Structures are given as C-alpha cells and as structure tokens.
C-alpha cells in the first residue's frame, strides 16, 4: 500500500514531522522558548526563519514544537474513536436487539453539527488537552460506528460467517476472527480522516480560546495569539497555518490513497479504463 508513490509522499511527510517535533530540542538552532525583548515581532530572516513572536521567541522552533500537541490530540482521538466506534458498530451490526438502541443514541449524537458537540462538551469539562481529546472523541466516534455497522451488515450474510455460526463458533470469536478482519479497511480509512479532522477541530477550539491551555504551544494557540498582531507581523499568522494545512492535507491524501489501495474494484476500474483507452487509440489509428 505504501509502495504507491501517492501514499508514500504524505506518509514520509508525517513521519518527518513526527520525528522533527519529538527531537526538536536537539537540533533546533534557536531555542523556541527563549524570550528576547529586543527581537519582538521580527520579520523572517536567516536567523529566525519564520520570524519571531511578541515575546521575541523564534517562530520556526515554536511551530515545530507545537506539532507535538496537535499530532498527539489528532492521533489519540483517531485511535479512541476507532476503538469505540468499532466496538459499538460491531455490536449494533451483529445483534439485532442492540441495533436500534445503539443507533438511536448515535443518531442523537450526530444531530449536532460538527464542532458544536465538542464545544458543548468543552464548555462543561473546561479546556485542557485531556478534555479536548474526550470532547473530540465523542464528536467523532459515531461516524465510525455507522461505517462499521453497515460493513458488518454486509459481511454478516456471507457464507463463511453463516458456516461458522452453524458449526457452533462462539459470537465473540466470530466477531473477532471472521468479521473484523474483513471490515478493517473502511475503519482504517475513516480513522485517517478523523485524524485530519481532529487536528482541524483542536486548532479551531484553541483558536476560539476554549481549547488547549494557552500556555501549551499548539498551532491553534499560536494563531489565537497572532490575531492581534496580524497587520504588524503577518508571518506570525501565516506559518503555523501552513503547517496545519500541510499536515491535514497529508492525512487526507493518505486516507484517499488508502481507500483506493484497499478497493480492488477501483483499481480494476482504472485498469479497465486504461485498456479501453488503448483499444480506442488502436482503433483510431
């Protein structure tokens, strides 16, 4: 899957960003936390590649370090939503009795526009990294539940599942050994998209001042602080934003690529189209 060039580029970018951000202290030329009142809101230069902020701190270093929390939140939310969504989706899809109860709750949770449920939960719990993760997990796992449930409903009727059932295999084993492996691809694809959406949502919540504590550097917090200096120091707003866009785009490309890689039908269709094109060309000549 990763051998395809289209998937490789975003994947390599994400790995590089991850390694760069966790090892930032060792290689950054200018420490991101050092304040220098003489260097306040300086434009990008060879010394400070992305310029400096209102405390004279180096923005390149801060942007790199800020990736930690953004990636942490995105990854944790994607993982938790996937696990919760898979469990509830398996139960809803497999047991008819649980289906209507679980799906009513899921429908209720999906009755909130994106960001609103997260905002409501953050309003209750207060802003912190943990609470943001909880709030976003609650807004995103119903999406996975729906995907998993509909996949289970399809797989459930296939003969090998029926055969396992009649030969007395226990339900948990059927779910884990026969159904789950066959529905993994849509789960992974959706998980990747949720990773991307949580990074955007965390940034939005922090930007609105109801997200991660302002003392912790995240891209959203940086943009929140940069807002009042927008005319004085536009670079303060531009660079963290570019990093959000690149990371989210990489994840979206990866999700798209994985979807195509997992879908043999899509591949077949592409080949068929190529073949048709060749034939047409031959015919024309």
């Amino acid at each position, binding site marked *: 899957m990763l051998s395809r060039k289209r998937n490789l580029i975003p994947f390599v970018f994400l790995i590089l960003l991850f390694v760069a951000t966790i090892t930032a202290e060792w290689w950054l030329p200018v420490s991101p936390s050092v304040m220098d009142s003489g260097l306040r809101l300086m434009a990008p230069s060879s010394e400070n590649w992305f310029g400096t902020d209102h405390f004279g701190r180096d923005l390149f270093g801060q942007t790199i370090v800020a990736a930690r929390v953004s990636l942490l939140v995105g990854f944790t939310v994607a993982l938790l939503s996937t696990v919760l969504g898979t469990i509830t989706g398996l139960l809803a899809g497999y047991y008819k009795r649980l289906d209507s109860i679980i799906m*009513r*709750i899921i*429908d*209720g*949770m999906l*009755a*909130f*526009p*994106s*960001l*609103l*449920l997260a*905002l*409501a*939960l*953050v*309003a*209750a*719990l*207060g802003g912190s990294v943990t609470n943001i993760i909880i709030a976003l997990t609650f807004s995103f796992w119903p999406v996975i539940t729906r995907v998993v449930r509909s996949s289970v409903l399809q797989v459930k009727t296939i003969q090998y599942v029926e055969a396992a059932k009649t030969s007395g295999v226990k339900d948990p084993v059927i779910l884990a050994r026969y159904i789950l492996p066959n529905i993994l691809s849509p789960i992974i694809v959706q998980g990747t998209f949720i990773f*991307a959406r949580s990074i*955007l949502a965390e*940034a*939005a919540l922090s*930007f*609105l*001042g*109801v997200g991660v504590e302002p003392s912790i550097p995240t891209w959203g917090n940086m*943009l929140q602080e*940069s*807002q009042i200096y*927008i*005319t004085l120091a*536009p670079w303060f*707003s*531009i660079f963290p*934003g570019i990093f*959000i*866009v690149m990371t*989210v*785009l990489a994840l*979206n*490309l990866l999700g*798209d690529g994985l979807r195509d890689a997992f879908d043999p039908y899509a591949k077949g269709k592409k080949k068929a189209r190529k073949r048709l094109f060749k034939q047409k060309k031959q015919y024309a000549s």
Partner: protein
Amino acid sequence: MLHYTLRRLVAIIPVLFIVSIIVFMIIHLTPGNPAFLILGEDSSPEAVEQLEQQLGLDKPKVVQYVDWVGNIVTGDLGASIYSEQPVSEIIGERIGATFSLMVVAMLITLLIAIPTAIFIVWKRNTVMDPLFLSGSLLGTSIPEFWLALLLVLGLGVAIPIFPVAGYVPISEGIGDWLHHLLLPGLVLAFVEIGLIARMLRDSMLESLNQDYTKTARGKGVKESTVLVRHVLANALIPTTTVIGLTVAGLLGGTVIAETIFTIPGIGQLLIDSIHRRDYPVIQGVVLFIACVYVLVNLIVDLLYAFLDPRIRYD
C-alpha cells in the same frame, strides 16, 4: 407521501430525546459544584445555595431533567446568569445576524459551486478535472479561521475594500448589510463550496451515462442544453441532501466566522457564554442549533422524497 412524512416525524422523537439528554448533561458534567464554578472561588455559601435553588440543582437529577424538558416545551429556556435576561429572548435578538450570515454564505456556495461543477463536467476529459479534485481536497484541508485571517489581511488591511468587523442589520440598507457580510460569508462558504461542487460533479458524471442523456444527444440537442437541462437537472436531486449537510457545516462554522468578524450572532454568543460559564445560555444555544439542524434535515428528507418518489418506498 403522507405515510412517509409520518414515519420521518416519528423517527425524530428518539433523536430529540438523546439531544435533550446531552444538552441537559452539559451543566452536570462540570467538575465539582456547578453553582460554585459559576460564582467563582470567593463566593459565599449562601450565594451558592441560592443559585443552586435558582437552577434547581438541589433536586434529584431525574426531577431536574423532567422540569427542564417541561420548561423547554413551553418555550422557557431559563435565564442568563450573566444578564438575567431570558435565554429565548437573547437568542431571538441574536438570530437575525446568524441567519443573515448563513443566507449570504449559502448563496455564495451555490453561486460558485454549481457553475464550477458544470464547467468541470463540460471539460471532464481535460486536465481541469484532476486539478479540480486536488483543489477540493486542498480546500477541505484549510482551517476556516486561518483563511479568515488571510482574507482579513488581504482584503481588509492590505487592499481595504471590505470591513473586517461588525454587522449592519438589513433594515439599515441592503447594500451595507451585504458589504459587511461578504467576507465572513466567503469564509463560511469556502469549505462547503468544495464539498458541494464535488458532490454535484459526481452525480452529473453519473447521469451523463443515463439513457435520457443519450436520447437527448441522439435527438441532436446542443451539448450545453444537454448539460444544463438533462444532466444538471437530474443531478440536482441528490444534491438537495447535501444542502442539509451544508446547513450543518454552516451552523458549526458560524461560530468561527462570527467570532473573527465580531458579528453579534448566536455563535459569538455561545463562545462568550462559555467564557462566562453562563450555562443556561450555553444549553439554550446548543439545543437551539441542534433542533434547527434536525429540522433542516427533516425538511431536506421530505423534499428529496417529494422530488424523487422512489425514495418513499425504501
């Protein structure tokens, strides 16, 4: 159609029940005593007790929930702790700005998305199509609030054609109203444009291969007429469902656009209330938005079934 309408109406009841429970929980999920949290660290025990009574927090949870739902059904959403004004009144004052913003954003979305989709389908075998697909993927990867900052920088500060903040009610002149709403409307519309255009392109490409399209071509109808009258007209039906999604996206995004462009709508109200820990207002706004969303989806579903009778028998 009547049977379908009734079925859809009944299906809404459990959804509203779950919504009401989630909104009710907002105040009870707070760590510690909500009354204490609202009043602040140095509040006297008497004041805390009084607020608890005012909010009904001293009663059992089930009783509180029943009371709360009973009040909502009669239109009483409680009163703001901050201004002591009834919540329904505050929402009423703010809804005009939000509604205006959403109408402008919706118009911008449709005015850009529909022609774009037609153009892409017309040029479907050129480089425009993959270019459009990458563009729409890039579009969904850009945070709305960052785009807003860039637009403020470009169109508000560097070349000041648009006001970067404030709101003028439509009663004070439609030109001024629109002038203030174009920039925030564009920000709000941005993500939706990509989604709708993409959706429309997909369903137009699908209806290109249908028999009625071939028949129209066979009759010798002009290609432009085929695209608009036959392909687009049929592709618009599934797109009505996307409009429901668009309203949802706009409702969520309005919080961001209103905050950045200081538009006094319910999104800004929500953020201000979260900062003030004004829980009755938070609950009121969240409940209101969720109900509007449920209602819009219901209308879209019914419209879809009305336009395409096959849906009713599914």
